């Protein structure tokens, strides 16, 4: 392993590095998800998701990704997984459910993939 120049956009397959560019792009979406730390905000969101999207100024791409609960689309729209996990929590999705959705597997298949990593 050598010391390499740090290139945020050098390709690692299936990986989006969350850097300044992504952080700016996804600011509204991540800010909304950060607000879900508080129960009153989760309740307000669930009562009227569209109004809540507007309150945080999400763009159409971000709104649609949220409506679809599509994690890859949320990442593409600038979402950071640590904040998106709070969105997933509202719908009781575990990190295995989220992993399964992103890799096109069932949750059981995804859990088996994780188990096999220990072999």
């Amino acid at each position: 392993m050598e010391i390499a120049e740090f290139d945020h956009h050098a390709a690692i397959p299936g990986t989006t590095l969350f850097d300044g560019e992504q952080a700016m792009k996804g600011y509204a979406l991540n800010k909304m998800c950060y607000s879900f730390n508080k129960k009153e905000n989760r309740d307000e969101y669930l009562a009227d998701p569209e109004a809540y999207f507007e309150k945080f100024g999400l763009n159409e791409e971000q709104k649609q990704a949220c409506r679809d609960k599509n994690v890859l689309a949320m990442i593409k729209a600038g979402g950071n997984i640590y904040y998106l996990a709070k969105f997933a929590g509202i719908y009781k999705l575990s990190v295995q459910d989220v992993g399964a959705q992103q890799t096109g597997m069932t949750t059981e298949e995804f859990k088996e993939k994780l188990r096999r990593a220990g072999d």
Partner: protein
Amino acid sequence: MATIIGGLTSSHIPAVGNAIANKLFDDPYWKPFFDGYPPIREWLSRHKPDVAINIYNDHGLGFFLDRMPTFAIGAAHEYKNEDEGWGIPQLDPFPGDPKLSWHIIGSMVADEFDITSCQELAVDHGFVVPMQLFWPGAPHNPDMPRTVPISANTVQHPIPTLHRAFEFGKALRRAILSYPQDIKVVVLGTGGLSHQLDGERAGFINKEFDLMCLDKIVTAPEELTKISRHELVRQAGAQGTEFLMWMMMRGTLGDKVTPLHKNYHIPISNTGAGTMMLECAA
């Protein structure tokens, strides 16, 4: 003068907090993980450190992207564990040691580490899960030490380099050892090991790389500082960058350490879970 008795590492996965709340210690899935902790608890109950410096990474509770400190040090009388949005039971506040915090902050800045000081800092699973694992019933364990939380940014690139993390640890060692009170300090490095939650590569775990890190962090941590951040993401996964916290911890221990115990288990949630106890040379 203050002394550093050793360093502990632990993964800090949220699911562990739920497993503790539900007492799943003998469940077949969880047992190989929880079995890694009794030797450490025994060592802690024998040495009874006065302070635990808990080096972790915030995951979007204490900090948001509006202002993202690279290195933040708590300087509060207590640290509250707050709702993270997904229903892990919240614990009572953890007692701080603000006098030691400000000594460390002063020493670090004099040593040219420009940190962020925090008089209020909500602590998430990254901080509380290891505390519960090492001191069951935390914060109400009778041996519960006072604490100084230190958080490093692994949310948003650019994150610190492994070299900087290790140097931070060395400066933290100088800060602790220059504290005039006779206190015993244990340093926690939490998070990791390899895992990736996001993207088509979600579920990535790298056993070979983890085992190499578990070995080198004891014998040759300087070698690990040569790994670039990009290479760390590639080898450890996007969230495996939490290994930075282990390197910060390791820097506080000095050159020679005695590895007393380690445990490694795949998977816990989406992660290769690593636990380690390193004792400082007397």
